[in-house]
Structure formats: C-alpha cells, structure tokens
C-alpha cells in the first residue's frame, strides 16, 4: 500500500463542472503542473484510474445538451474513446417505470480478481456493471428492477438539489460478491451476492428529516468508505453526522458527537488513511438553519481523527483565516499513499489544495478552475 515518493508518480484527476483537469506532481510533490482542460464544457462528475493496470482511466461526463456517457482512456489520458453502450435504464412501457439516466455520478473499479469489471452509480439511483473495461454497461437488475427500489429511494423530489444519487459503490477486497452502496436518498445498502439482492444497512443512523428519525431506509449518506485493510470497518459522512460501523455488529455509531459543537459534524467528504483504520479526515460545512453548505464561519478547515472518531483535531494551517465561503463536495477530497501521505481537496470555488504531512500544512496548488466535483489521486 505504501508507495515511495521517490519512485511513484502522482497525478490528481480533477473532475469539474466544465471539464477534466490534471495536476502532475513534481519531485517530492512540492511542485505541480496543471494540464487541461480536456472535455471542455462537459460536466465531469468523476474520473478514476484503474488500480489493477494503472493506465486505464474512466470518466463520467455529460454536457448541457447531450445525454450522459462514459469516456475511456487506455493510455492514462493520452487518447479517449466513448463507451459503446453507456449506462442506461431498461426501456419501460409503464409511465412510472420510465427512468432515464441523467448523469453517471460515481465510478468504482471492480475487485482485484475481476479485471475489466467496473461499477457505475447514476442519477437517479441506478447501479450499472461493465465487464469489458467500461465499453458496454448493463444494469444491475437486482437493484434497478427490485420491487422495493421506489420505496428505498423515494422519488426525484427526495434527492439532492441536482438529482438523487447512487454513490459510494464499494467492493469488499476479500469477496468480489460483497458490495456496499450509498444513496442520496435511500441510505446505505449491502449485497452479498454481487448485486442480486440488497439489504438496508442503516441501523443507528439518524434521518432527522423524516417522521421516524431512525427508519430502516430513506437516509442521506453523503459519502461512505470501507477500510481496505480492515474491510469490516466502514465510515460515513452523512447528512445527519459522521458515523462508524464495525462489522459484524452492523450498527452505526455517531462519532461526530466528538466534533467541536460550534463546527458540528455535517459535511460531504470523508477520507480514510490507507494504512491505519483508526485515522480519517472530514471537511465540515455549515449544515445549520437553511443549510448554507459553506465552511462554518467562512473559516475552512479539515478535521482529522486518529482514534476512529473518539476525538478530532482541527487542520487549518495554510488555509484562509476568514471570508472563505466555499466547501468541498463528496468526491472532491482524497489522499495519496505516501509516507507521510498527502491530503488533497478541491473546492466549490475552483481551488485545489494540497495538505502535506497528512494535512498539517495546506498549500493552494491551483485556482480559478470551474467548480470542482471530484479529486482522485492516481499513482503509477
């Protein structure tokens, strides 16, 4: 998991509201070169490197006029081809079943034992699987056609402002058949048979926007992560706080209660330390009153816990001290695997920040980009 800074190369794949950009790290990751835009004018929701071959990139994109699609690069971004059959729901006869993919929101490479397999999450909530490296996509019928789907997800009006989302598609590194997803709205769900059947996994998690604050489903997880070395541990940044789950108990514990009360525990992203299941980072936002969705008080900061959420430490060295009214979306924060590792995030105001030494010192490494939707570290 640990990669030497001396030998590994790092790029940040930056998906924005107006296209794809890349930041190329120089020696020691102390300097950065920006390239792009690629796909200028496309809404780029997520760009991910395949960790199984370290050269295939998939990009989820659409434009204002045209329907959603997926682009693929087999040469680490030198050339791109469009998917031959992008994710699309099955054609339906009944009006209530006529669903259309508005955009592909999330991309996840499949299990290490399944080269070429990818999963995609869409808006509205749908799961799609490719077995040929993203060339063609098929709906995961166990979810998309599940008779409970409408109850689990609610309707279009129940989602986030730019459409309900399927996100956080997670594959258990021990078992290719064991999958998790997060839905806004819908909650966290689990499948142990590669998507044929699904069960809600929301016990202990609040949904204070519903009459029953602890329902079986209908929650709003913003981002869910599974620890690669301890896959029985999950974390989520939810609309209603920060949570940890340790399997097999299967109950969410609100670890955000330990955050400072004047900051709260609302936000979008959550990032795990790849080598330490007890260490994680969040980026709080103002979720009070009318949900401004900006840094609390205009003073942005990441928070780190090195105790699985029992305590938190503020990380704001190098960040603006005041009047910075941006925030970080759910896919827009990540880490590399260096020792010590770097933390990276992109803002709604188009800046990219690098947090050296595990976030102890932040530096702005790009500005004036479009609104940043996703930042992924690609190490080769």
């Amino acid at each position, binding site marked *: 998991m640990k990669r030497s800074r001396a030998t590994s190369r790092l790029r940040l794949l930056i998906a924005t509201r107006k296209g794809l950009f890349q930041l190329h790290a120089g020696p020691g990751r102390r300097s950065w070169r920006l390239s792009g835009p690629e796909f200028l004018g496309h809404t780029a929701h997520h760009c991910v490197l395949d960790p199984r071959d370290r050269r295939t990139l998939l990009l989820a994109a659409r434009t204002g*006029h*045209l*329907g959603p*699609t997926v682009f693929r690069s087999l040469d680490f971004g030198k050339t791109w081809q*469009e998917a031959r059959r992008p994710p699309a729901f099955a054609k*339906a006869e009944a009006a209530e079943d*006529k669903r259309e993919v508005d955009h592909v929101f999330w991309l996840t490479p499949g299990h290490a034992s399944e080269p070429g397999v990818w999963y995609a999450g869409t808006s509205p909530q749908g799961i799609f699987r490719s077995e040929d490296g993203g060339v063609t996509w098929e709906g995961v019928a166990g979810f998309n056609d599940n008779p409970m789907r409408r109850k689990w997800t609610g309707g279009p009006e129940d989602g986030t402002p730019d459409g309900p989302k399927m996100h956080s598609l997670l594959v258990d590194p021990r078992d290719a058949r064991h999958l998790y997803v997060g839905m806004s709205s819908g909650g966290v769900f689990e499948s142990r048979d590669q998507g044929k059947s699904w069960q809600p996994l929301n016990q202990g998690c609040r949904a204070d926007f519903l009459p029953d604050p602890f329902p079986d489903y209908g929650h709003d997880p913003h981002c869910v992560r599974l620890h690669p070395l301890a896959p029985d541990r999950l974390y989520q940044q939810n609309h209603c706080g920060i949570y940890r789950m340790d399997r097999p108990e299967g109950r969410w514990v609100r670890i955000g209660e330990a955050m400072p009360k004047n900051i709260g525990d609302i936000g979008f992203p959550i990032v795990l330390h790849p080598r330490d299941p007890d260490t994680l980072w969040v980026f709080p936002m103002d979720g009070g009153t009318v949900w401004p969705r900006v840094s609390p008080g205009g003073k942005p900061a990441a928070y780190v816990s090195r105790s699985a959420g029992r305590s938190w430490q503020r990380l704001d060295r190098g960040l603006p001290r005041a009047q910075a009214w941006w925030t970080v979306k759910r896919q827009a924060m990540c880490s590399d695997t260096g020792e010590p590792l770097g933390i990276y995030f992109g803002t709604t105001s188009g800046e990219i920040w690098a947090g050296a030494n595990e976030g102890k010192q932040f530096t702005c490494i790009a500005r004036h980009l479009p609104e940043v939707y996703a930042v992924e570290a690609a190490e080769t």
Partner: protein
Amino acid sequence: MKVYVPSPLSSYTQEATTVDATGGTVAELLEDLDRRYPGIRFRIISEQDQIRRHIRIFVNREQVRSLAVRLRPADEVMIVGALSGG
C-alpha cells in the same frame, strides 16, 4: 436526406455540420445516424425514446416531438442544441 448537426455533436461527425442519412421516420433516421456515427443517438434520445430536454428536432423547419413522424427523401432535418443554462 440532409441532416444538420449541432456543434455539441460535431465530435461524432468528424466536425461535419451537415451529413447524409436515410429513414422513413425520425426514429429510423436516428438509427441510421447511429450506424454511421456510433454513439450519437444516445446523446440525443434517452433510453425511453424521448428527445432529450435540451435537444430540438425540426423537419422542414417544423419542430417534431415524436420519433414516429414520417419522412420523405427530400425532407431537411435539423438537430439543434437548445438553450441549456449556464
């Protein structure tokens, strides 16, 4: 027949703004366009066979809303990227 293609779709037509395609209906015409320019149809038409929200199709300068509209070889078809926000 002659089909006018808007700039958002020009990457499919090797930058051509006017192409030839055939079909007895708008649906058949779009199928033929997709054979010639793979992937173009899904960017215009959803999986439920609906014209996408910000796309307009005109036949002889009259807007059509159904893919079942019949076409004659001399017809002129325009695919237009309509207003779609900022």
